[in-house]
């Protein structure tokens, strides 16, 4: 059900009381603070607000006013999308769902007082806190690179200005130039992402700069959809892409952003564009909140609540939940389980058993899409894979085109599910 826009134009007490579920009239409304407005946080905020019909006070803290989705940002780099196509704003979450959208950085969490402090100085109280901060990078994971080098060697693994920079650098490569990617170790956001990006860069270079070369240094012997990507590289970008796995020193890498060189297993190469995707960890606020163990935040598979604090939930990339890949689809799926549990805890609404699913589409070349997916269930130990599927090599062009069109439909669906 959609809440009528008029519903929240007046946020006075009368409106609120009229909307509140009967059992909470006369009581304080439950307060939920959500940190991070991506696939996990925006979805959780929207579902809690939508389904509680005003009975829960939802605040969403997100520093950016326009959110650029990481999913489909590779298609932007490849020239299939423009930057406006992947940008979304939060206005409808405020106007149609009554969410208090605060554009600020959360810089502190006091779990005993149940408060969140913001960079702007304000303090927010919560009954339940939902952390969906995405990823940050592990310092020193690629020798020679740190965040001060991200202009020379972009990561483009948080979409927006970094994606624009990388696209511009690919387009500015000299004829016959070299593009290098330093691929990340597991686990990381969007397992097929680096390899789809290679396809998109190659797609652009094939027509604009066909003698250019692409080098990938990879610490992993295997990667997501490997057979499908390698088939695509052979079929569409033959001779352009050199993937160097750990067997050939892909795990022994350093970079020099000032000299624009990459050294792989002792051999130094001058490059014209360099995409460094460092090792990842949970977004910093999860660490500040004290709910991480190592790089990630362990959670219960039943409701995405932190193993450290049942009043804190962690969604998406930042969480350590078991078998689900770190994807926008996964975060959206986890957000609904979390929203249902939080609403049940604060209003007494019925809580249904957790169920999860994920599908990841990747674009190999124009109208040539592939996908991988699985469904999952909650167990005491973890979110457990219950079976899935993957596109096959050798599929015909008609099926690949249909898969691509389906990915476009999914993008429209999930962004509507996140932002209203």
């Amino acid at each position, binding site marked *: 059900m959609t809440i009528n826009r008029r519903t929240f134009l007046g946020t006075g007490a009368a409106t609120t009381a009229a909307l509140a579920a009967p059992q909470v009239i006369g009581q304080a409304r439950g307060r939920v603070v959500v940190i991070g407005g991506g696939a996990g946080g925006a979805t959780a905020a929207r579902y809690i607000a939508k389904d509680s019909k005003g009975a829960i006070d939802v605040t969403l803290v997100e520093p950016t006013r326009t959110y650029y989705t990481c999913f489909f940002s590779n298609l932007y780099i490849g020239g299939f999308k423009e930057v406006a196509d992947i940008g979304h704003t939060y206005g409808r979450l405020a106007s149609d769902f009554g969410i208090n959208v605060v554009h600020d950085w959360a810089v502190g969490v006091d779990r005993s007082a149940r408060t969140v402090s913001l960079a702007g100085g304000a303090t927010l109280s919560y009954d339940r806190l939902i952390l969906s901060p995405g990823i940050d990078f592990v310092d020193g994971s690629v020798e020679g690179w740190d965040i001060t080098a991200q202009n020379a060697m972009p990561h483009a693994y948080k979409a927006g200005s970094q994606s624009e920079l990388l696209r511009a650098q690919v387009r500015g490569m000299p004829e016959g130039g070299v593009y290098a990617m330093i691929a990340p170790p597991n686990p990381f956001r969007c397992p097929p992402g680096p390899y789809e990006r290679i396809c998109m860069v190659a797609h652009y270079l094939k027509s604009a700069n066909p003698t250019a070369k692409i080098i990938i240094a990879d610490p992993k012997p295997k990667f997501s959809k490997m057979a499908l990507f390698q088939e695509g590289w052979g079929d569409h970008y033959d001779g352009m892409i050199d993937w160097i796995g750990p067997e050939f020193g892909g795990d022994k890498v350093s970079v020099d952003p000032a000299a624009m060189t990459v050294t792989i297993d002792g051999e130094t190469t001058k490059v014209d564009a360099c995409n460094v995707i460092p090792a990842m960890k949970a977004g910093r606020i999860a660490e500040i909140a004290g709910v991480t163990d190592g790089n990630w935040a362990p959670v219960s598979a039943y409701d995405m609540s932190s193993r450290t604090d049942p009043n804190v939930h962690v969604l998406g990339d930042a969480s350590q939940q078991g078998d689900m890949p770190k994807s926008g689809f996964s975060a959206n799926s986890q957000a609904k389980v979390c929203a*249902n549990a939080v609403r049940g805890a604060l209003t007494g609404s019925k809580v249904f058993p957790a169920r999860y699913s994920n599908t990841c589409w990747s674009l190999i070349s124009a109208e040539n899409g592939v996908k991988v*997916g699985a469904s999952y269930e909650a167990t005491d130990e973890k979110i457990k894979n219950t079976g899935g599927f993957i596109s096959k090599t050798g599929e015909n062009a008609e099926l690949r085109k249909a898969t691509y069109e389906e990915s476009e439909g999914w993008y*429209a669906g999930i962004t*509507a599910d996140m932002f209203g």
Partner: protein
Amino acid sequence: MSADPRILILLVAIAIHAGAAQAQSGDAEAGRAVFGECEGCHEIGAGARHGIGPHLNGVFGRPAASHETFAYSPAFLGLRDRGLVWDETSLEQLLEDPEALAPGSPMGFDGLPDIVDRRNLIAFLRGIGDGSRIAGTGGDRDHGVDPAVLAIQGDAEYGAWLSGECVTCHRADGGDAGIPSIVRWPPDRFVIAMHAYRTGRREHPVMQMIARRLGDEEIAALAAYFENSGE
């Protein structure tokens, strides 16, 4: 003796003209077979009712998207707002290339490439409109779903919870670019479609994965929820 070439040309011309007239008017009986492409979503004839798409009794001569009892997609509401009426020309356009006439059309139908098929189908649709009733067909007749399963009254509240898994891809507002709309389907059609994915009668890896872990009660719950969703 050889034929006068002028007579031959005349005969050929008559033959072509006759063929054109035949195509123009179409063969309603042949069109009935072509309707097999449509019957998954549309019913027609005595007792026909709305399904995934509206029933097509009296469609010829009717303004687009004009059944008050059917919830149309934005693509067809756009045709209505343009004042489009279903006649020989507009039906021909729709049947040749639905996406060109109604961009964003939710019809899971790519068009009929053969003009003879299109003309025959239009003749069939028109015949129904003229009152020559042909019994309704109604979708997947060999679906094999137990009537007891079709009779399950789904729990819409449970369906609302389960629907979270659907609306990541199938838009809750019924938008249908790239992925079909599933809002406002008649519950029996919804159940039949999901069972077809569960048994493998219908192929789609994502849908088979989703359907295979849904029980009969869960499918019925989803059907009950989506029947009244997308308002």
